[in-house]
């Protein structure tokens, strides 16, 4: 996955992501595609969650999956999550949960609760950084004011880092794939550098939904695992989801 929160020169925040999933879960030699990625694409839906006929939040997700991986609370915040790998992984959390040790939250239920109940960027940041989890994760959070964008790196028990926008220092975007931002990514899976190269070439002056979509359409940021691309603008109250394909030649991940 690749998630990015960017601030343009007018202080408007944009949040976008590629949802990549299905690695090693079956390769279709004939079509040179990942089977699970292809089976997930027909399940992708945008959902408008309403209460009293008013929108509480909107999301892009998979039918049948009640947790949230991508969402926007109109006028307040945007949230995506990317998978984080750690030896102290979710399988330990699941075992503990099955054995009755139930302090930890299921990752996607936490994101759903944040989108449904949080009333501000700061409140969401606190919930996402302090709630004990069953699995490690990256939460990428955007707010509704200048400077409100961050990547929260989580282990199961604690928050390892919060990497924030810092416009004064020229940090006008934060971009997360699936590696701790202070460490180099796996050389055979370095989608970070190509993505940052395109963001830097775009420059803050030209960042927009269109140019962020360009970056997310550039191989290997777009790859065989990419099921959908979602772009969000909290100030324009816009969430757009698009199903993706990556015709050969294309990186498998």
């Amino acid at each position, binding site marked *: 996955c690749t998630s990015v929160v960017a601030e343009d020169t007018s202080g408007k925040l944009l949040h976008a992501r590629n949802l990549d999933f299905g690695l090693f879960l079956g390769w279709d030699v004939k079509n040179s595609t990942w089977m*699970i990625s292809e089976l997930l694409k027909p*399940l992708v*839906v945008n959902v408008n969650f309403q209460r009293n006929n008013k929108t509480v939040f909107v999301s892009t997700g998979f039918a049948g999956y009640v947790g949230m991986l991508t969402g926007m609370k109109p006028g307040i915040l945007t949230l995506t999550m990317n998978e984080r790998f750690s030896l102290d992984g979710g399988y330990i959390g699941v075992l503990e949960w099955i054995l009755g040790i139930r302090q930890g939250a299921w990752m996607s239920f936490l994101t759903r609760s944040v989108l449904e109940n949080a009333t501000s960027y700061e409140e969401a940041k606190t919930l996402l950084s302090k709630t004990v989890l069953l699995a490690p994760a990256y939460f990428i959070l955007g707010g509704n004011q200048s400077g409100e964008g961050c990547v929260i790196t989580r282990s199961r028990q604690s928050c390892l880092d919060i990497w924030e926008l810092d416009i004064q220092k020229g940090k006008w975007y934060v971009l997360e794939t699936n590696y701790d931002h202070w460490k180099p990514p796996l050389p055979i899976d370095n989608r970070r550098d190509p993505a940052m190269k395109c963001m830097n070439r775009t420059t803050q002056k030209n960042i927009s939904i269109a140019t962020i979509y360009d970056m997310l359409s550039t191989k290997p940021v777009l790859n065989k695992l990419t099921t959908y691309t979602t772009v969000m603008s909290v100030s324009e109250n816009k969430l757009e989801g698009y199903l993706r394909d990556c015709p050969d030649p294309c990186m498998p991940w």
Partner: protein
Amino acid sequence: QDVPPYTEDCRSGTYPPSGPTYRGDVSWYTVNLDQPPSDRWRKIISDKKQPLTAMMQHIKDLTKYIFHTEKLIDLVDTKLPGLVGKLPPPFDEEIKGIADESGLPLGEVMLFNIFYEIFTV
């Protein structure tokens, strides 16, 4: 990560989406949070029953292929339903409603919803 033609230089002009990397817009649905949790997903699931069943079947086939046994699937179908009630509300009832609407075993729908934690293996 510069391995042309598998990687490429920064694209431009890809928006509005079109061409071979664009398969289509994602369709919109409404979920009414005033409804009982078990009824919220009925419309979506009745539309997506077939692809959801196909995806679950693939996971089962893959499990059989990797572990050479159906025991794991039996475990999911027989043991996980007893744990659905331990999930925090409203997710327990929403998952039951999805199983009911789709006709899929409750354990398998729960597995799909905790797949992130499981998959970190």
